[in-house]
């Protein structure tokens, strides 16, 4: 049936085309590889300089030191005041953005008409699209003076104003990811609840939110991670004064009274990101300890945000698997 002459030649035999295909394959692969190289470069850059730093300053001293003074003598590299400042700003921002973002997500997913949603969603995205340096300026020049009407003792540079601004910035992060999770709750669940005579409020709070909880948690973690890494707004609003609240000791454990903690919100502070920028704008010599300390904080920051992003990814995967 198929003698020699009839056997078709299916080898392609198009040298030009084959070469072209391989070339493009390789080119596109190189493009994709670039992102891996970027990560590698970040890790190597941070690690080499940070290791040089930790050779001089023991890791334990860095992590438990209570004074941050990289350039002014006596030079000390204690990261705790920076961690404290970061935690304060982040806490304040989270206290604003998490509930507001969650309620926004519920409104968008359960109550808003399609027309309202089509206006609200892009408007919320605008909040995330404003450059952070603009937010910083808004906070310093307009928000802080406004707050001083309520809190006369507030400083020109303060944590409270920074928290509010960072909070506004991360609202869309919470709301958009949470809304995605809520929208992917199947209607059959809602219908089951309606069928039992539940009101819309009951359906939203007892069915939709619990079902979307992993997505919501994931959005919270991402937003907090974003707040920790936020730089410009905090640099401009919060100032650059590495503070730790005074701690009294109760039963051997350090204790900070809630009122003095709240007073800290009205004071300037310094976050990890502010410390990086402050060192960078100052004139510091390459390979000096101060220069290397930049990368030590950078590494800490990178590690914290990376871990939070990974956790958020893991949590988010759960809700994707559920439906």
């Amino acid at each position, binding site marked *: *049936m*198929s003698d020699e002459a*009839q*056997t*078709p*030649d*299916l*080898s*392609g*035999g*198009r040298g030009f*085309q*084959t070469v072209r295909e391989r070339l493009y394959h390789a080119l596109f692969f190189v493009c994709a590889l670039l992102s891996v190289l970027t990560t590698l470069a970040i890790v190597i850059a941070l690690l080499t300089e940070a290791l040089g730093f930790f050779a001089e300053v023991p890791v334990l001293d860095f992590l438990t030191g209570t004074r941050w003074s990289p350039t002014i003598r006596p030079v000390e590299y204690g990261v705790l005041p920076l961690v404290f400042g970061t935690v304060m700003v982040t806490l304040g921002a989270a206290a604003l953005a998490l509930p507001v973002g969650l309620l926004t997500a519920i409104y968008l997913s359960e109550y808003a008409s399609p027309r309202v949603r089509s206006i609200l969603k892009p408007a919320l995205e605008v909040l995330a699209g404003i450059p952070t340096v603009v937010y910083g300026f808004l906070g310093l020049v307009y928000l802080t003076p406004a707050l001083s009407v309520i809190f006369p003792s507030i400083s020109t540079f303060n944590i409270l104003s920074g928290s509010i601004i960072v909070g506004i910035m991360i609202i869309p992060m919470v709301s958009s990811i949470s809304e995605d999770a809520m929208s992917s709750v199947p209607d059959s669940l809602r219908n089951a609840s309606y069928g039992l005579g539940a009101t819309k409020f009951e359906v939203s709070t007892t069915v939709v939110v619990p079902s979307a909880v992993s997505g919501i948690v994931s959005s919270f973690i991402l937003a907090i991670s974003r707040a920790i890494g936020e730089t410009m707004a905090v640099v401009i609003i919060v100032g650059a004064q590495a503070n730790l609240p005074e701690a009294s000791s109760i039963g051997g454990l350090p204790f900070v009274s809630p009122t003095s903690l709240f007073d800290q919100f009205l004071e300037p502070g310094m976050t990890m990101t502010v410390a990086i920028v402050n060192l960078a704008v100052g004139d510091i010599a390459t390979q000096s300890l101060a220069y290397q300390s930049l990368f030590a904080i950078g590494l800490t920051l990178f590690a914290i945000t990376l871990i939070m992003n990974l956790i958020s990814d893991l949590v988010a995967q759960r809700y994707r698997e559920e439906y």
Partner: protein
Amino acid sequence: MSKDVTQDPETDSEKLISTDVSTDDADGDVPDESQVRTVIESQDLDVFYGDTQALQSIDLEIPARQVTAMIGPSGCGKSTFLRCINRMNDLIDIARVEGELLFEGKNVYDDDVDPVALRRRIGMVFQHPNPFPKSIYDNVAYGLKIQDKTENLDQKVEQALKRAALWDEVKDRLDESALDLSGGQQQRLCIARAIAVDPEVILMDEPASALDPIATSQIEDLIEELAEEFTVVIVTHNMQQAARISDKTAVFLTGGELVEFGNTNEIFENPESERVEDYITGKFG
């Protein structure tokens, strides 16, 4: 045979098909077995998707210039078999093929076979009409352009549209978007696109299942005409359609098993296996 080649160099399909095959019997009457040449032949073909076996040791011979129908319940592997023929399964990462599938006596799964070269000789029409979002003209010219067959482009496009019985409907608006056509017209355009490059075989994966009855009957008429020039392999879940248009029928049943293969009228009138009879008479599936 060689004479035919010199007489008609235009059509690729002519070269490989003996002229003494009776081709005008698309209505299911039995052609003379000895004279029909086999174009595609599978030998002990197994297909796996990951750990699931989709086809079990399929042996099948598809004759030239006839319509061969593959029928069976959904999930029986009939589409999988079709996609093995032009190696579209290569595009699915987890698909794995064992055994041989011969096209003109050449195993298409040999290492030296380029699936792209193979697909240029075996055209395909899909379940849902999938014209490109380009003009009608550009859709038909697409295959010719990528295969560098661009001499007399206008003429070839016109020819293909005529053979697909679409020319009269679209000749005044070749520059309009193909997406403005009706579903049935789109599917005929896809057929025109496939035959424009003169393939030897046309594979059709439930080409009429997304169409209304009138468009379906137009497509069916077209398929019968196409069988005069091309070898047509069609997958369908519509048994009446298979009975109407095919010369040969292969019945696949759940689990990827080829249960029966033979002349269409024999299969429908007097199936050998009880399971096939149950399926054809609608007891299951």
